[in-house]
């Protein structure tokens, strides 16, 4: 029999671990829908985590940290867009290149700025529980009391779903990723749409990075994203390029990560490496077609030579 408190802690930490993935994955979803395989989410998350933590530490205000995180990541997203859309560079190469660059730059910056002061506590985002829900036994404390950014994440995802499904903008994004030629003929500016989508991914990745550093653990560590960006891409694939399923995939990945902290507490001996690898195995099975047919946007990762 599992104690209710332990179960509540598990659910709460699954949600908390899924949230940064969801932010990044929702951003990546938009970019891939527009036809750009944005591999640099990992690097942009890392940059966001670093810039957010630094600004929060310097100003004492996590909100300014969040703002600064976003402002610093937008130029990086622009670089990704410029390389892959205007210069038509290989999207995988540019993504990995930017990830390597950001890993180096943030590590260097961290050493230069924090140096011996590392491990310094950084002012973090406030926790909050929706009124009424805070008093539910067990759940109120462990599940619903979360960083407010988590609730903002859910709102953002609902907003993205609405825009993508019901507005002209959403339709244009879909068109740019499915058939750029046809979209261009009907008067849409494909490149501009793709630029917008990649910049939006940058915005979401920055929030995801800030969630890690100033939302969750209140510090920055070198290379702290450790593959979360790639996991977000895996979530989009696992979600078959649909937002609802991507959300479920993030929840699943979050739970798999939470399990690795919970199982030892329950006395279950499962190698933690197995659990950490689990999301990647699931994603591989998904792209291998074991979870139904995969329907990627047809022009995904193909540069568009026209306007």
């Amino acid at each position, binding site marked *: 029999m599992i104690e209710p408190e332990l179960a509540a802690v598990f659910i709460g930490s699954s949600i908390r671990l899924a949230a940064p993935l969801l932010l990044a994955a929702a951003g990546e979803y938009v970019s891939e829908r527009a036809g750009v395989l944005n591999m640099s989410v990992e690097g942009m998350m890392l940059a966001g985590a670093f810039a957010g933590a630094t600004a929060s530490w310097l100003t004492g205000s996590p909100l300014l940290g969040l703002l600064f995180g976003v402002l610093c990541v937008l130029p990086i997203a622009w670089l990704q867009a410029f390389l892959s859309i205007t210069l038509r560079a290989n999207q995988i190469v540019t993504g990995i*290149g930017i990830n390597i660059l950001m890993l180096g730059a943030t590590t260097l910056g961290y050493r230069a700025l924090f140096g011996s002061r590392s491990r310094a506590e950084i002012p973090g985002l406030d926790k909050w529980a929706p009124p009424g829900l805070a008093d539910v036994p067990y759940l109120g404390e462990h599940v619903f009391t979360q960083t407010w950014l988590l609730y903002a994440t859910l709102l953002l995802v609902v907003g993205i779903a609405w825009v993508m499904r019901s507005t002209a903008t959403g339709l244009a994004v879909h068109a740019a990723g499915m058939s750029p030629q046809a979209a261009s003929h009907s008067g849409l500016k494909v490149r501009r749409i793709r630029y917008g989508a990649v910049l939006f991914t940058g915005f979401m990745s920055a929030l995801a990075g800030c969630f890690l550093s100033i939302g969750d653990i209140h510090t920055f560590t070198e290379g702290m994203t450790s593959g979360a960006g790639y996991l977000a891409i895996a979530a989009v694939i696992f979600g078959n390029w649909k937002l609802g399923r991507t959300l479920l995939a993030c929840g699943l990945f979050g739970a798999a990560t939470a399990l690795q902290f919970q199982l030892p507490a329950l006395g279950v001996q499962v190698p933690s490496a197995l659990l950490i690898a689990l999301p990647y195995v699931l994603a591989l099975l998904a792209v291998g077609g074991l979870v139904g047919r995969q329907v990627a946007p047809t022009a995904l990762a193909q540069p568009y030579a026209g306007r």
Partner: protein
Amino acid sequence: MSWRTSLLIRLRPSPALLVSAVAVLLAFGMGALLIALMGVPVGEAVAAFADGAWGSPYALAASLNRALVFMLVGLGFILAERANLTNVGGEGQIAVGGIAATAFALWAPVAGLPWGLSFVVPLLGACLAGALWGGIAGVLKVKAGTNEVIATLLLSFIAIWMVYGSVQSENLLRRPMTSSATLPESLEISEATQLPLLTGDASMPLHAGLLLGIVLGIVVAVILRRTVLGLQLQATGLNPRAARRAGMPIDRLTIGVLCAAGAFGGLAGACMLQGEQYTLKAGFSSGYGFDGLVVGLLARGSVPGVIAGALLFGFLRSGGINMEMVAQVPTALVVVIQGLIIVTLAGAALGIQRMEARKP
């Protein structure tokens, strides 16, 4: 045309070479600027870098051993690239190669084989493991139409954690625990299973894998330039439908070439383990596969390009480590330089293509 003029024409720097050289120089310039900004005398840092990269027989051997790993992964990459397949799974292929090499080397019957076989069998085991890992992506591509970039990337992450798992469990490769302080790593492999040192002298630990690398470099160059197989791969890459119409077994070619690329990665993992580290540790391949991938990408399909890139990255890594120890410049600087080189060259690719197309 006399051989002299034809040689001269060949030696005329191509746009690609020029752009690459400029990109590398720019990145180095940027690195020097960052060093100066950090308040470290640039001369001192450069001296430390050179010392660590090629300043002593030991440093030179370490750089060349690293370069070999990058070269093997890069060779596998350009082989697959010829068929228009992008193998980004070098990291995972190195990891499974390392696991297999360790498992074979620690297996008593193998360690007891006559000298020569005792280190060749683990090497072959690693090739097989790497081929299997690359082959999964090939089979998925052929059977399910899965993009090989995504498959090889996911396989890499799985393999990295497999290394962690295999050294964490005593039932697998973890050394028997003698105290609670026993690290999660394998036993050291026996001397018979280690790759012999070319100089026979530990002050210059250049291992025999280098010879293998040279041979394989020639083999890949010949395959790409002079064989039917190279042509078939190219045809498959350029227009799979036409290639199939022409009777080429493109499914088999696709799976086969990804297996081959994987085998190169596995071999690279075995060389790291049997040539340098001798003990399997979690994270033993930290980033080598991704560096090798970049070397392959930058080589633009040529074996000399792979060799040049591998040497560059090998020296960068060794020099960077020494720069951190001696001049207190974080190795992250070298990572920044690598990132800059990749981004610049990727961005310049379209321009290079156009310049090359304009060439008579």
